[in-house]
């Protein structure tokens, strides 16, 4: 039960009576943090969401950005970005799977075809025998994502896996789903105006409604708690990607029929709050009311209580508002053409109610009215007052960083290679189909971003990336700004221009002022980066979709590292231009682009330092923007052989990856000459944004950098010998690439 005494009092004041059980659960769902954004809304208004390129901004199930005009059609990309953290902690397989399932539904119901998903996974770190479930949760979250995405036939287009002990009791599972849609075919999540002049009915289709996920909307807003696990359990939903796959085909048939008949509809997926939330939002946002007949809902068990039927979060369901004259045709597509009732007991489509001009929300069940609300009461804006408690955050490094005594540079280099944060993640993504649909051009792991070719007969590519970082405990503003800047670097790195961003903001308990401060700062960081890294003269890189997940902490009070996760999409005019990270040939020169700073707080170097300023890697927007522009210019003039961004792990990890490649199968060796570098720690390990590029034409690259006043240095050349040699002012280190390759692949089967 999530409704507080105060909430209940407020509800009684609004209704001037006690709510019925069904009404109680409707308010419970609608007023939950998950649905109402009651803590976050005022802060989220700071984000730049508008731009000329936005076809559909925030407010419906997905945001949509214009992508490319081809053959007289405006092709757009629809994106939904969601978290499923708490459910994944309790039932990792089902939680992660339904996380993917819910997110793709948001995209399908815009009329789009889902062309890929990305996931950002944050897992705990096992220490000793303490955390039984940390490893198991990692294994099973990965299995859950594979169990859903693979059968659904949607490729996983990358993402990230991070490890930190703050996630031990609360993993993060963030998913973004991307869809392709022609602008003229966008379907809205509300009943169309047409319903004023002709009767519209509500069709529900999908899995039969059952009790799974009942109270799910309240669930993700309660802090996880050992003792409460049993009671939380019924809240998790059960996925069925197979049925979803069949529904996706049936939806296609429906939409084709509706397009041929030129019929306007409203279409929405069922998520938190089930039938009640979806149908009320469908009607209310169109300016209508609804009268539902719960007896018409296909259910799995006749004993279900009306409030369960109305509010359960059973997966794989959609609601559609269609003209009464066409309801039978639509029902037949599901029930007869695709024989859905034969594929799953009680599954299928049924007509469950009518759209009314009277602005009320009524539900009938066994001849009783079990819900009778004014639309205005449902849409009452709930607001929770939250306070933030600022703290001082250092922004400028003033102390020269010093290593702990007796630590050798070479040892640090080796520890980096042995860290799960840096090693190959093939052990994660080998479970995910990355090429179903046949559009994949640059595969996950090959480059900073994945590239697909979504439009048949067009050589235009879509680049995608999803990123976050672990800087939030020291500098929550930078956590947001850096996530944006990194995701944009990743897009640039394959030669694409950024189009749009989405965010998923994972924080602790917003009732705690220190946590709320972190949240505010993260949003400000995202806002500034989205505004300042745009190449457009007046528009930001628009944020077209997003989600907030609070209460990511355990009862012990360990909030997770503030974790804003950003998904970026970009456009590349010709997929043939895209390059990857690995260097394949000898005698190629490597150049580091972007200045290094001794900003080591929360970086992987921090544990080895005895003295340093408490400053996390800052994002310098003007420098970053110039660097990004430079890389795109180098692409344009065909001066690049390979390109890789510098982020977590610094230049050291970047060059190792460029030599080893995705598989740890090097084609050439590398001689790095850093002997001129006066700050070798910063040179190798600084995580400030930048790039390492490989070129045959160093003079031309140098000239560009100087013209545009971009800090750069030639750092080395590839050699035929399969070795990595690093020369500093004081020493020479050397690795055999076979050994390095074994380290890189050490967690892979």
């Amino acid at each position, binding site marked *: 039960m999530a409704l507080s005494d105060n909430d209940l009092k407020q509800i009684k004041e609004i209704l001037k009576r006690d709510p019925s059980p069904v009404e109680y659960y409707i308010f419970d769902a609608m007023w939950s943090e998950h649905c109402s954004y009651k803590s976050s809304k005022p802060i989220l208004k700071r984000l730049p969401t508008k731009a000329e390129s936005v076809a559909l901004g925030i407010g419906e199930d997905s945001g949509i950005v214009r992508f490319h005009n081809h053959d007289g059609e405006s092709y757009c990309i629809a994106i939904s970005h969601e978290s499923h953290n708490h459910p994944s902690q309790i039932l990792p397989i089902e939680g992660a799977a339904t996380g993917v399932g819910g997110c793709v539904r948001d995209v399908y119901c815009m009329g789009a075809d889902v062309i890929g998903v990305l996931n950002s996974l944050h897992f705990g770190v096992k220490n000793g025998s303490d955390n039984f479930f940390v490893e198991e949760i990692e294994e099973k979250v990965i299995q859950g994502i594979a169990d859903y995405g*693979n059968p659904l*036939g949607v490729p996983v287009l990358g993402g990230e896996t991070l490890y930190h002990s703050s996630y031990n009791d609360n993993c993060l599972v963030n998913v973004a789903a991307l869809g392709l849609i022609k602008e003229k075919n966008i379907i809205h999540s509300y009943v169309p105006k047409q319903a004023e002049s002709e009767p519209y009915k509500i069709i529900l289709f999908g899995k039969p409604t059952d009790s799974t996920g009942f109270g799910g909307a309240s669930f993700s807003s309660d802090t996880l708690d050992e003792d409460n696990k049993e009671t939380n359990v019924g809240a998790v939903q059960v996925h069925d990607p197979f049925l979803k796959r069949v529904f996706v085909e049936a939806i296609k048939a429906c939409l084709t029929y509706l397009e041929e008949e030129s019929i306007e509809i409203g279409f929405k997926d069922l998520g938190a709050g089930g039938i009640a939330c979806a149908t009320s939002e469908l009607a209310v946002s169109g300016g209508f009311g609804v009268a539902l007949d719960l007896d018409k809902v296909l259910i799995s068990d006749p004993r279900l209580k009306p409030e369960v039927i109305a509010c359960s979060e059973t997966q794989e369901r959609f609601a559609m508002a269609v003209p009464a004259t066409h309801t039978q045709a639509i029902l037949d597509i599901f029930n007869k053409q695709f024989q859905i009732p034969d594929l799953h007991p009680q599954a299928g489509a049924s007509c469950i109610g009518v759209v009314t001009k009277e602005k009320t929300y009524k539900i009938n069940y066994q001849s009783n009215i079990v819900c009778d609300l004014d639309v205005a009461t449902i849409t009452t804006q709930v607001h929770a007052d939250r306070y933030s408690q600022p703290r001082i955050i250092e922004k400028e490094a003033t102390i020269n960083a010093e290593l702990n005594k007796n630590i050798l540079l070479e040892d640090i280099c080796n520890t980096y290679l042995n860290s799960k944060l840096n090693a190959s993640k093939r052990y994660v993504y080998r479970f*995910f189909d990355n090429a179903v649909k046949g559009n994949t051009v640059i595969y996950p792991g090959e480059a900073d971003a994945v590239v697909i070719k979504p439009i048949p007969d067009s050589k235009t590519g879509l680049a995608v990336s999803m990123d976050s970082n672990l800087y939030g405990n020291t500098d929550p503003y930078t956590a947001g700004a850096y996530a944006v800047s990194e995701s944009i670097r990743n897009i640039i790195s394959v030669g694409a221009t950024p189009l749009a961003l989405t965010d998923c903001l994972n924080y602790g308990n917003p009732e705690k002022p220190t946590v709320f401060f972190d949240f505010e700062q993260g949003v400000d960081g995202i806002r500034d980066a989205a505004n300042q890294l745009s190449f457009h003269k007046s528009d930001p890189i628009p944020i077209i979709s997003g989600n907030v997940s609070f209460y990511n902490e355990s009862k012990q009070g360990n909030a997770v590292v503030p974790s804003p996760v950003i998904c970026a999409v970009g456009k590349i005019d010709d*997929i043939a231009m895209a390059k990857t990270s690995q260097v394949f040939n000898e005698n190629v020169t490597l150049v580091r682009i972007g200045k290094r700073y001794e900003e080591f707080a929360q970086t992987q170097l921090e544990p080895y330092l005895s003295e340093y300023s408490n400053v996390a890697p800052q994002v310098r927007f003007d420098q970053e923007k110039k660097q990004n522009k430079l890389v795109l210019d180098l692409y344009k003039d065909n001066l690049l052989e390979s390109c890789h961004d510098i982020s977590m792990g610094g230049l050291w990890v970047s060059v190792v990856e460029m030599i080893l490649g995705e598989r740890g199968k090097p084609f050439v060796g590398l001689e790095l000459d850093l002997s001129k570098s006066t700050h070798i720690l910063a040179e190798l390990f600084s995580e400030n944004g930048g790039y390492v590029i490989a070129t045959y034409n160093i003079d031309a690259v140098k000239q560009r950098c100087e013209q545009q006043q971009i800090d750069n240095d030639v750092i080395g050349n590839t050699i035929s010998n399969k070795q990595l040699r690093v020369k500093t002012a004081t020493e020479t280190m050397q690795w055999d690439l076979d050994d390095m390759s074994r380290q890189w692949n050490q967690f892979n089967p």
Partner: protein
Amino acid sequence: MSVAVIQFPGSNCEYETLHSLNVVGLSADIVPWNSDHLDLSTYKGFVLPGGFSFQDRVRAGVVSSKLPILGFIKERALDGYPVLGICNGCQILAESGILPDYNPDISMGMGLAPNMNEQSYHGFVCDWVYVKIKNPQGSLFTRYFNDTDVIPIQINHGEGNFKFFNKELVQTSTSTQLIYSDEIGDVSFSYPTNPNGSEFNMAGLCNQSGNVLAMMPHPERGMFWYHIPRYLNHDLSSQRRKGVLTDGPWKKMFESLRDYIQETY
């Protein structure tokens, strides 16, 4: 003269398979699993695409293999029409007993077991591997390849581990087989050259008359130049990096099917 791509509940590679057929100039339709046999009778070839028909429940392919449409396809296969099963389609052909046909007395000669690495379950694998083709001339699908070719291809399956009822018959058979190899064509029976524990490194095989091919890897994902990853240590990848690769290696398979249908019907 067109080809039917059978859409089972849960198929998910039907559209790119259709596209591959269309690109080489074959007309093709996606035909649902519950279609009337009469509707199917005009087709000159049949493709069972990849996916998870019936969610791999019980085990991959078994529920689909019991459908009436499989009885029809079996008849067509015996009549000599081209039948291609890719991934889940391969599993369905195995469960239906259509392949292999080394010994007509054995009703079910092979099965696709869960992927193994040594003696342990290995789970789902998405990866690029290499195959060689034994007796490519023996099948209408592979006749444009050479037996020296080492061809990159993607696998995406959790149950692709070929097990045979009678190993000797497989070993002595001369009919066409696709065999996992490494990038230079060596056939080592250990992981990762053999990605899933298949007996004889089997990746796919044909019936004796060469008109039915069942393969676990995905030829439709090796159709176009951009399908071949830049990072492989293979001549095709090197060509892609130089910007001179024009087609994927598996286009030939679909072209061969097209030519066969045009020659024959």
